């Protein structure tokens, strides 16, 4: 589904990603761990094609196509979707209008009618993200993605800033997004969506089954393994030790 080869990304004069190699197989869920400032969000932005960063070297392949220099909408049309951590406010653009305008397979009305399940029905006529709380932003992103129906989804800290009352709903909606338990437009195809998920706490792992995890630090991938194993190591030893372990092995 996704293959990243020796990716170097610069922001201004500073190199953020220093040769990232990573792949996500069809139908797989991959987790990206790493301390703050390690370049995880930059990697997600580079895959989506947004942000002010510049790819200086390397390649991003999606469904076998080189998308390294494609525009954001071309990538979206190929099937990439993103749940942003801090999406921008857009005054005057209503959430419901955006959902309708971007819905795939004419599923806009179906998704709108499901807005209640996302606890978003009273937000459809509101300006996107304007005055939304942490949990509301997540639910809004998930509602939009439910309409967009990507084949591969980038989730940037889906559980961050969410209170305990909301975490269950958001976790379930992330699950639905990846496993398509409620097919849209009547299609019964058991679609399994691939994903790359950034998480710090690992809470989201209670809702989705992840296949592989990567640890990123200082713009590089240092380690890969089973998500629960890596999470346990990070919890017990911290990122510094994790990387040392890898260095010894090398």
């Amino acid at each position, binding site marked *: 589904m996704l293959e990243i080869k020796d990716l170097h990304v610069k922001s201004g004069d500073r190199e953020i990603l220093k040769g990232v190699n990573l792949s996500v197989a069809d139908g797989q869920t991959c987790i990206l761990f790493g301390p703050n400032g390690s370049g995880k969000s930059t990697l997600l932005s580079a895959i989506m094609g947004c942000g002010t960063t510049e790819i200086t070297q390397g390649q991003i392949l999606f469904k076998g196509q080189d998308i390294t220099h494609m525009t954001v*909408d071309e990538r979206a049309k190929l099937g990439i979707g993103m749940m942003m951590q801090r999406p921008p406010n857009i005054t*005057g653009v209503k959430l419901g209008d955006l959902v309708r305008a971007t819905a795939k397979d004419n599923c806009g009305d179906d998704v709108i009618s499901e807005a209640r399940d996302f606890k978003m029905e009273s937000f459809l006529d509101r300006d996107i993200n304007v005055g939304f709380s942490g949990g509301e932003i997540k639910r809004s992103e998930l509602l939009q993605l439910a309409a967009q129906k990507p084949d591969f989804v980038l989730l940037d800290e889906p559980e961050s800033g969410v209170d305990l009352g909301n975490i269950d709903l958001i976790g379930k909606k992330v699950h639905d997004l990846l496993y398509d338990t409620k097919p849209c437009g009547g299609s019964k195809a058991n679609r399994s969506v691939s994903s790359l998920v950034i998480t710090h706490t690992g809470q989201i792992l209670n809702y989705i089954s992840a296949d592989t995890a990567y640890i990123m630090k200082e713009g590089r991938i240092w380690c890969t393994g089973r998500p629960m194993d890596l999470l346990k190591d990070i919890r017990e030893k911290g990122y510094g030790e994790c990387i040392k372990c890898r260095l010894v092995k090398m």
Partner: protein
Amino acid sequence: MQTGEDVKKALDKKAAYGKDIDIDRFEEGERDVKQIDEIEDSGDLKETMDHVGVTDQEDRLGTIIFIDNGMSHCSNKAQDGVELLSTQEALKKYDWVKDYMWKAIDPSKDKYTAKTYLENSDGYFIHVKEGYKAKYPVQTCMLLNKNKSIQNLHNLIIVDEGASLEIITGCSTTHHSNDALHVGVSEIYIKDNANLQFSMIHSWGKETGVRPRTACMIGKNGSYTNNYILLNPVGSLQSYPVANLNGEGASCAFNTMCLAEKGSNVDTGGMAVLNAPDTNAQIMSRSITKGGSMIARGRLVGNASGAKAHLECRSIVLEDGGTTLAIPELEAHVADVEMTHEAAVGKIARDQVEYLMSRGLTEDEAIAMIIRGFLAGSIEGLPPSLKNEIDAAISKANLGN
């Protein structure tokens, strides 16, 4: 009292704002014009009217159409509550009408008002009777049909005590006319507890000069909303309507959305004069500059205690080359007032465009959606009936890159 001589002297008087226009270059427009019985039978004029929201649909209470300087159509489905006439007919029919003429606007204000006064211009007359609350809007349409001519109109709107009305005015040039001048003097009187929502949607020629002169007198607890929409190229437009909040608790709102394309010179805004206690005013302006010249003005004058007002001018600059100037002004003459303003000029935020593109919209679609939101969505109280016209105008303006 003004005399004809005083006003004659004002024929050379340049306006306070906007590029000066030589009015002698134009001949006075015709008064004897083609009569339209039904909008749907108006031939090629129908399309022109469509573009500025003038329709033959059921949901209009009445319609007045002016072509150049003559009334071409006047129909009214609500004779019991609203009277629609031409201003000259009204002056003949009622003795009291003259008491409203040139009371809100000084005829020697500038050359355009002077010309209108001296030509004894006709225009539309709308009178809403005491307590009548109109369910549907009245529409008026001002068409400039002759090249090298001046359309001089003097409109009078009176909303009597406790009454309410919405007016939608579509102004446009036909394909016969481009290098022409529209001067529309509108005097509006909103009595105690009455309200008026006045929406203007305009589509002019690339060389047309436009000089509306609007002033409104508002009584106790009366309210006035002025929506002004210009999303098509224009030669030179200068508009600065004034609302005088004369009665306690009166309120007004000005919402302006304008586009200045290359070659367009737009100078627009509004002034609210808060003359009575506890009055309230809001001036919101949203403008887009695409290579043209745009001035967004706003002025609040606080003359009485408890006056509250807010002024907001926001502009998006789409490309280099044009000029964007925001001029917010606050003026207070008493202590107990609260007046604020905000002004912002900038480009469309890249992160917003990319966010929408990440959902699959093209860059042009994303920009159009953001601009539509910027113009229409951020202004409260726009009549839903105008939404389609605004959307169509935005699509036509092709604001993507």
